């Protein structure tokens, strides 16, 4: 964890100093991002979603959201966007208290969510900076066709790369990219080993609440970097050690609790009351052995790796392969498989008000998964960063009833 904190602090320092160093920031989204490509041009990636969730963890997102609503944003829409806009309007102070640089480019990789497009259109109006659109087709039939890949690669070659060259003033260096992709693949191997550890009983990790910490570096600015590689090496060793000792997951209390229920979780977590939310699980002995949110940046356990041999093709596949870019039947397959693979007693859907991409259709998915696995699903509702939509009493009530139901059924 400490390692991760250091990495983040270093990155934000670098961002805060761009005025002096002349480095340029490229804003882009987390799912299916082109991190290695951005680094390959020596540009600095910034992920507004991460800023929004960090603001929520620091209890500032509520104000930001209100600020955006005051500026005319609707109550009904994704609060990630509103938190980001609010933060910008209040001086664009990032999670470490330092000011974030303005974007030199908005790299709109339109992956798995239509809101992304609106988000950067809004930022474009605010910053009046260039935008480059990378349209990533949806896996409507549960697979990537050669035409889809061709379309993305063509955009990378003819639209994205030329723009990055223009912004950075550097030529595209494919060898540099290859080296980073090779590094990414090594981290990815280690992450898969971490996820796999949860198959053991008791699970040494919590793959949802704890999991969001594990995915931090690889999903965001660090994939492809040396620090990232060493982070995952260390993490893997730690987790394998815990597994060997038969220890359960680490929780904010530090205590290892008895593993009473093994759960798979679908949907992003709530960030505004993250700890309180987590506690509702571990206090009852519920351990999340797998989750879909931790796969929004890539489904490595299904075999995908960044590939230095086919750099642009593998970037294209990475973009198209993220969880929310897959159709509902594939998502059902995936969760059902996780439930079997990780021997879960049940699954919980945390339905997020903000995120249509995740949430629309979850109720049907739940029914289908229950039918297919015979395992009961629990359903709760909250929001990512809008504290108004975290009703602790309500969620607790539902979870409690759900756990008692699992207990009664077992």
């Amino acid at each position, binding site marked *: 964890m400490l390692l991760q904190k250091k990495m983040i602090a270093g990155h934000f320092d670098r961002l805060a100093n761009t005025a002096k160093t002349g480095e340029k920031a490229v804003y882009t989204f987390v799912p299916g991002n082109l991190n290695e490509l951005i680094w390959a041009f020596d540009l600095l990636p910034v992920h507004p979603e991460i800023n929004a969730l960090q603001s929520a963890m620091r209890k500032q997102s509520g104000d930001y959201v209100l600020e955006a609503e005051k500026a005319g944003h609707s109550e009904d829409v994704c609060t990630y966007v509103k938190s980001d806009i609010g933060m910008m309007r209040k001086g664009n102070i990032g999670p470490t208290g330092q000011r974030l640089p303005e974007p030199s480019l908005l790299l709109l990789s339109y992956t798995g969510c239509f809101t992304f497009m609106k988000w950067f259109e809004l930022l474009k109006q605010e910053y009046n900076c260039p935008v480059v659109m990378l349209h990533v087709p949806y896996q409507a039939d549960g697979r990537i066709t050669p035409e889809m890949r061709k379309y993305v690669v063509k955009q990378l070659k003819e639209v994205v790369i030329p723009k990055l060259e223009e912004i950075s003033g550097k030529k595209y260096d494919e060898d540099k990219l290859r080296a980073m992709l090779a590094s990414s693949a090594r981290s990815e191997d280690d992450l898969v080993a971490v996820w796999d550890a949860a198959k053991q009983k008791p699970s040494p990790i919590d793959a949802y609440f704890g999991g969001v910490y594990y995915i931090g570096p690889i999903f965001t600015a660090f994939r492809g970097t040396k620090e990232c590689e060493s982070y995952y090496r260390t993490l893997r060793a730690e987790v394998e050690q815990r597994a060997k000792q038969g220890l359960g997951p680490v929780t904010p209390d530090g205590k290892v609790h008895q593993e009473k229920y093994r759960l798979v979780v679908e949907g992003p977590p709530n960030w505004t009351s993250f700890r309180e939310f987590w506690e509702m699980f571990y206090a009852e002995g519920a351990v999340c052995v797998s989750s879909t949110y931790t796969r929004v940046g890539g489904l490595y356990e299904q075999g995908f790796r960044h590939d230095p041999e086919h750099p642009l093709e593998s970037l294209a596949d990475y973009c198209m392969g993220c969880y929310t870019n897959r159709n509902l039947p594939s998502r059902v397959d995936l969760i059902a498989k996780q439930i079997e693979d990780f021997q879960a007693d049940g699954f919980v859907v945390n339905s997020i008000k903000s995120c249509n991409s995740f949430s629309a259709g979850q*109720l049907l998915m739940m029914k289908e998964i229950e039918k297919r696995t015979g395992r*009961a*699903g629990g*359903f709760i509702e909250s929001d990512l960063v809008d504290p108004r939509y975290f009703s602790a009493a309500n969620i607790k*009530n*539902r979870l409690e*009833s759900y756990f*008692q*139901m699992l207990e009664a*059924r077992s």
Partner: protein
Amino acid sequence: MDAYVGIDLGSTTTKAVFLDEHEKLLGFGITNSRSDYDIACQIAREEAEINSRFAILRRELRSQVAGDGHEQLIAWLFQKYRLAQHSRQLEALAQACRKAVDLLPNAAHRPPTHAVLDQILTEMEREAVGLFTPGAVARSDFFRDVAASSFLHLAEKKAGDDAKLLDRLIGTYDKSILQVEAKSYTNAFADYIRFAADAVRRMPEFEAHGEAITRAVANTIAIEFRVLNTIGTGYGRQRLPFPKEQIRSEILCHGLGAHFMFPKTRTVLDIGGQDTKAIQVDENGIVTNFQMNDRCAAGCGRYLGYIADEMNVGLHELGPLAMKSRKQVKINSTCTVFAGAELRERLALGERREDMLAGLHRAIILRAMSLLARSGGVVSEFTFTGGVAKNQAATDALRKLIAENYGEMTINISPDSIFTGAIGAALFAKRDRKGDLIGVDLKALQKPVKPTAQEQR
């Protein structure tokens, strides 16, 4: 006698159930929920105990009185018992009212208010005797409502055109009833039943049974209930003074309670005062799925309560009125408060009250249909529980919509359906009992009466 107790602390009513060693129901108790949750629990539990004793009393009398005579006898004993209890509360109310009038800020207002108040209270006492006879239709099961309707009716009559005086009287009542509610008047079974026995013995038709009554009453009083375990559930369960193991989610309790009453039930719908739940259970009464509504009055019992107030009719009358509708009128507003306003406006524009009420009942059931669909649809058999199941217009609308959307099937509605959650809790109390753990006995929870907000002011 050993007993297990289930308590369902609802938002509008608090229910308790006594269960014996063989999972047989002994008695039910209910009271309106009020600001003091502990008192509400205590009273519900005491009511359940009283109800259990009356069951015993009936058995005793049946064995001692030949033929069907005992039915009449028990009915009278019960009514007189209620009268005794009611009188005790009236007394308390009178006291509180007088004190409140003494505190009126303007001293000049006090004497005239006292004068009218005295008249009202005397009248109420007289009325009470008539209220408690077998066959009299109760306006409500709760002192609060019975007293309120008499008081307000009388106050309006006595105050005449003097709107200020009326306001003062209503204010006095509103303050005083809170104090009466903060105390239990149910924990004196022996006193009340002796009063009742005396009264009944003096009635010419029961003269012959004097001795039987005395014996049966004495036997009943002598019975001690030993509560082995208590489980609490319901909206307010988190505030019950029980350890965590003695609290169960209301979903589980409703599921199990419904299964107990109707073992073939697979789907349960509960519409209570503050929430609506759709629950699916398996063949053992274990919950497999459930859905609950958000915290909005539209779609639950309070919606109907609010509308009844707006329309100036009693909650009991709402359903029957709606049943008289000739055509349903769709109410556009979802919000309870707006629906109330819309109703008034449309009444002015010439719509029939009955038709609009029919529309309202349908609306509330439609919302429940959504929840049902979400929880997994309706599977045979279907059981409807909660207070709203007492409303016939609601049950009719439900039957119709279920048939239209899920086909014909058995729909269970028990007159005791309001106790479903408490029954489930009592069953859990019995099944949970491990070793000789003695559950919390609520008698230990009696608390001194707190001053009301007005007194503190």
